[in-house]
């Protein structure tokens, strides 16, 4: 909450400045998930260069439509567009920053990092096949824990969100049952569970309801002191969510510039990679070179100077190797 209030203040200040003069103004619109970090970058960027960014967090759907209609300099979307969609609207796409999604549980006496889960277990819990904490499957994963015979309260998002898209892509990728019965998207038809609105809604629920499990962005787990679980990744290791684990996922994730980086950062092959992460993407219009060059200038600046600020707000900066790939992509498209 504090983070949001601080950034609202910052953005209000930035916006009120933007009314003052006729300097360079960059207009962006879209995803709400990266809004705090874009605003913070914009504030620093303005202090450093005098150029302003006006970013409206109207949601990914709106961002895609705005850039398709060419009413903004760049659009932002939590979900990557496919190359076919990009070609249709003549767009370019690259990732800007990442976030990790973690599973959080509430059981008396259970601390962060105590419960171990794998994708099959998570999938079965969210499908409603595993109903109790002392299920055989959970027992094998946690041989040393004393799991109680209590019903699992499953918590999910009630609103459409990029977080849900990342989480359901993780389940679809790891679990064929989920793919067939539910699928992946910003909002899905949940087989079981109750819905909380926003990350704050889910956090609130997991915090209040004993024997519950939910998924939230990493930042919310940290701020609300929720007990996150360990997850087994594709390499077969149980990993703890951390900046390093997210960065390892990004470094080993298959971001292909030829496909305009269209990739879900889930079940990444890295040894220490956290399996549920996701980048948020920037969309540029190929035919509006001026706008794209201006936008690229901003994100290039943010790649160079914005990592600390991003981490402060618990976003995961892109690893250097990926930034280099993106710069090469910009060059290849003549906007860098």
């Amino acid at each position, binding site marked *: 909450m504090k983070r949001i209030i601080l950034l609202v203040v910052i953005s209000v200040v930035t916006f009120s400045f933007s009314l003052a003069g006729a300097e360079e103004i960059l207009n962006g619109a879209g995803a709400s998930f990266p809004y705090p970090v874009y605003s913070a970058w914009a504030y620093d960027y303005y202090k450093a260069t005098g150029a302003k960014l006006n970013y409206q967090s109207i*949601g990914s759907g709106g961002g895609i439509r705005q850039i398709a209609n060419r009413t903004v300099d760049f659009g932002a979307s939590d979900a990557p567009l496919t190359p076919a969609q990009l070609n249709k609207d003549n767009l370019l796409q690259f990732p800007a920053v990442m976030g990790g999604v973690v599973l959080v549980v509430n059981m008396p006496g259970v601390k962060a990092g105590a419960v171990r889960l794998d994708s099959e277990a998570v999938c079965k819990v969210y499908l409603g096949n595993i109903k109790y904490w002392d299920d055989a499957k959970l027992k094998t994963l946690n041989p040393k824990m004393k799991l109680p015979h209590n019903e699992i309260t499953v918590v999910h998002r*009630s609103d459409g969100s990029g977080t849900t898209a990342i989480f359901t892509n993780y389940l679809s990728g790891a679990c064929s049952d989920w793919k067939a019965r539910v699928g992946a998207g910003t909002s899905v038809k949940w087989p079981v569970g109750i819905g909380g609105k926003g990350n704050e*809604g889910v956090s609130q629920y997991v915090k209040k*309801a004993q024997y519950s499990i939910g998924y939230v962005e990493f930042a919310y787990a940290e701020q609300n002191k929720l007990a996150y679980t360990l997850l087994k990744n594709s390499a077969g290791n149980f990993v703890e969510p951390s900046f390093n684990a997210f960065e390892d996922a990004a470094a080993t994730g298959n971001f292909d510039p030829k496909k305009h980086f269209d990739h879900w950062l889930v079940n990444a092959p890295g040894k220490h990679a956290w399996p549920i992460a996701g980048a948020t993407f920037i969309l540029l219009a190929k035919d509006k070179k001026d706008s794209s060059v201006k936008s690229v200038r901003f994100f290039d600046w943010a790649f160079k100077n914005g990592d600390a600020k991003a981490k402060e707000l618990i976003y995961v900066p892109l690893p250097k190797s990926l930034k280099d790939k993106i710069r090469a992509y910009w060059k290849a498209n003549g906007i860098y």
Partner: protein
Amino acid sequence: MPILQRKNPVDLSFSLITAFASFTVVLLISGIFVVLVRESSLSIGKFGVLKFLTSTEWNPVTESFGAATAIYGTFITTGIALIIAIPAAIGIAVFITEISPNFLKAPIGVAIELLAAIPSIIYGMWGLFTLAPIMSRYIEPALKSSIGKVPLLGTLFQGTPMGIDILTASVILSIMIIPFTASIARDAFNLTPAVVKESAYSVGATKWEVVKDVVLPYSKLGVFGGIALSLGRALGETMAVAFVLGNNHQITSSLLNAAATITVTLANEFTEADTDMYLSSLFYLALVLFVLSFIVLAIAKYFLLRAERKYSR
């Protein structure tokens, strides 16, 4: 044309300006209607009217949409909210106009109007952080273990009390609409001529009898008006219920389950609706609410008119 008969140019332009202002409202409403129809045409084409209204499926992944669950949620939350709010609101109005000592009237009146001035998002957050935990910990388990055991009525209180459910949403809605009903009912009660009340008292009627047989019949219209207004407000209320209803597309007999209303679906899913069919279906839902509200308000208006006619006779 009475407007043109006026000779004074100031008068004429004044009339024209007011007429223009009034017509903008009509224009806006029809504009909104046209936009809703146009934006939802994709979905109307795919699902038709009857299928969309009766289908309980709402699955963005398979792009299969129906409004039945949202319509059900809208009516059930509104209905329960009215059941809770109307007696409370009339009680408040009776207390202020008939029972309360004079020095209490103003503060209570102001407090009620302040209740109406609170933005609905505040109700929503309060509902999520304060009311929902109270409901799930104390009120709902109590209801479940008492009324929940009664046959038939008990089906209303089945399932795990989580606090994010129809009952919590309805309670919040009812708190939101109490001020509307109460302040209009109060104004209506105040219009009862003192002479009539005093003559009732003078023939030995008790306070209860005066309220029941003199004030209430006299002010029926105003009270109905207040109820109709709050009905409209409850149908369209969004943020207060968006946080505590769970947005779960299902038709359920238990009030302890999550559900979805039309507005809650829109608020929750509009920003991240990524495909054309999804967005179009959300517009279609909005169109359904638009038509529903129109019908409900028309019915309310019809009853008001009928009551008025009967009353003036």
